[in-house]
């Protein structure tokens, strides 16, 4: 078990602000946040690479805050595929084992097994520079995993790979780390899909703070704050100013918003959040198409309403011409409401939001 209490840093590009959490062994924690949210900073602080101004790091109840980096029993895979250029692939992976005191033969045997697991059994004697980007990152992953350290940290490990390789490694990742049952695995990413797909628990970071955590599906369905909803939504969720009056929901320009099934709060201002799938073609709301883009097998259309901008997503590749008018409907079951302080105040009939 890894426990962090009130981690705060000062001397870094992004500072951590009172981060506390308890990580359990055998689980994969995905840390989701935008660039600059403090994900890398958190990993570096855990590793001892960046000094803490306040806070403690405990591993199995033992305080390791002041322990040297080399003695922390942690592994880190960087976003940039960092390997030792002067060593062969086999020696790269054997390097941490040799530092643990294992003899060369044993270290090479274990490194060879690990490299076979990550699919690089044929490239043992090559130098990292002779491998493709995906293969280089596998070497880095193998070197981190072969140590069997208690904490395995992966800092956006797929970010520098092309789309296909990213998909491939993302699929393989659970198999690759399956043997690390004693380890806490921390995986940072900026991609909500990746975070939800890979993590047992998802942690959302924003401005150097943990703003939400929980099961990925729950967090996606019921983000506790506006910031959380914003971070975990891809394509982006749209926020539109509105208000409640006489148990009716209005967009800011006085347009009545759909609210069937919603238990509306008392009269006052609210932020209405529209997920891309909350808007569908054909309906009572008129908008102008601002931009149309394809994402895989879906089309994302940016719409300009009288009351604000929102994003609609439709299945299939469809041509929407920018500048044209379109009528759409808004499905109330995909609407969320946030209070002016950012808290989620969505309540539905027979169900808490």
């Amino acid at each position: 078990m890894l426990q962090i209490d009130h981690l705060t840093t000062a001397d870094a590009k992004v500072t951590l602000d009172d981060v506390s959490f308890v990580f359990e062994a055998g689980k994969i924690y995905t840390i989701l946040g935008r660039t600059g949210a403090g994900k890398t900073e958190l990993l570096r602080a855990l590793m001892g690479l960046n000094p803490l101004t306040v806070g403690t790091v405990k591993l199995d109840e033992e305080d390791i805050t002041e322990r040297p980096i080399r003695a922390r029993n942690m592994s880190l895979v960087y976003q940039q595929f960092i390997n030792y250029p002067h060593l062969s692939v086999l020696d790269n992976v054997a390097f941490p084992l040799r530092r643990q005191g294992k003899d060369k033969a044993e270290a090479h045997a274990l490194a060879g097994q690990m490299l076979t697991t990550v699919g690089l059994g044929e490239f043992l004697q090559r130098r990292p520079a002779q491998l493709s980007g995906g293969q280089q990152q596998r070497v880095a992953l193998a070197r981190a995993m072969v140590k069997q350290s208690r904490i395995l940290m992966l800092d956006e490990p797929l970010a520098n790979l092309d789309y296909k390789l990213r998909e491939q490694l993302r699929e393989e990742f659970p198999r690759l780390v399956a043997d690390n049952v004693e380890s806490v695995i921390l995986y940072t990413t900026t991609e909500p899909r990746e975070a939800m797909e890979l993590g047992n628990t998802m942690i959302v970071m924003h401005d150097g703070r943990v703003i939400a955590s929980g099961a990925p599906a729950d967090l996606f369905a019921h983000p506790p704050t506006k910031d959380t909803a914003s971070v975990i939504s891809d394509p982006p969720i749209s926020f539109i100013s509105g208000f409640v009056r006489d148990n009716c929901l209005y967009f800011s320009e006085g347009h009545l918003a759909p609210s069937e099934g919603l238990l509306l709060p008392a009269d006052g201002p609210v932020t209405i959040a529209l997920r891309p799938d909350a808007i569908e073609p054909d309906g009572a709301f008129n908008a102008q198409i601002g931009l149309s883009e394809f994402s895989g097998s879906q089309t994302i259309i940016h719409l300009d309403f009288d009351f604000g901008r929102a994003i609609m997503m439709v299945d299939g590749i469809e041509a929407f011409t920018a500048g044209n008018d379109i009528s759409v409907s808004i499905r109330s079951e995909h609407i969320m409401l946030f209070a002016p302080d950012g808290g989620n105040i969505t309540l539905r009939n027979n169900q808490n939001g």
Partner: protein
Amino acid sequence: MNKVYHTLKTIFLLGWSIFVVFPFLWALTTSFKDANAITSGATYIPWVDFEPSSQGWTSLFTTGSQGINIIGPFIDSAVVTLIASLVSLILGTLAAYGLSRFEYRLGFVKNSDITFFFISQRIMPPIVLAIPFFLMLKELGALDTIFGLVLVYIALLLPIAVWVMTDFFSGIPKELDEMAMTDGCSPIGAFFRVILPNSVPGLVVAGMFCLIFGWNDFFFAFTLTFTETQLLPVSIVSLNSSVTPWWSLSAFALISVAPLACVAVIVERYMSRGTMSGAIR
């Protein structure tokens, strides 16, 4: 267009090569001439233009009025240059690593100021340093000794090593050090096991500069020695008398250039900057 460019490039490089090599060929032919061949106008091809003579070469290994024995100065030069270069490279590399990886602050003095301080040692004209060096060596009883020259040369070569290696280490990502530490190395272990093996090109360049500047120095070798110790550049000058022995001077010049040329040919392949590829992407 490409072909024209290629042709022009080839012609330029050919012309430049001739420009560089010609002085060596000239010195080589001159070293095999005697006084008559020297004064009889421009001649280049032995046995055709002039009758070759080994006088220029044999006089370098003869003591007395017939020439000067250069074996002693050659060994002195080699010892002083190699020891001073090695010590400068070791100290300079360690200092450069510290300057590139750790932040020092003493009042208003920061890393960049310390680096500039090292470089500033080379900005000063040698004459400014000569008198203090002379007085210091005199106090130490190290005037006209190899030990004294080694001390002075270390002071002169250290800034070069620090300068070159600081620049080189700045190009190596810090994440490589961090990776080594997460893999179980101490900070010193990370330097010796990971950074140093990947710094061969920088070490070669710094080492070459140290060897060149140390081997070719005339001024300090001249001002800080008298009779006991004599380095090669000073010996060359001592060959000059009322009649300039161009044949011996040419042979001497070739011998003094030879070690550096050999070292350059051997280490040239290490000087490419390609070894960091694969470290970080």
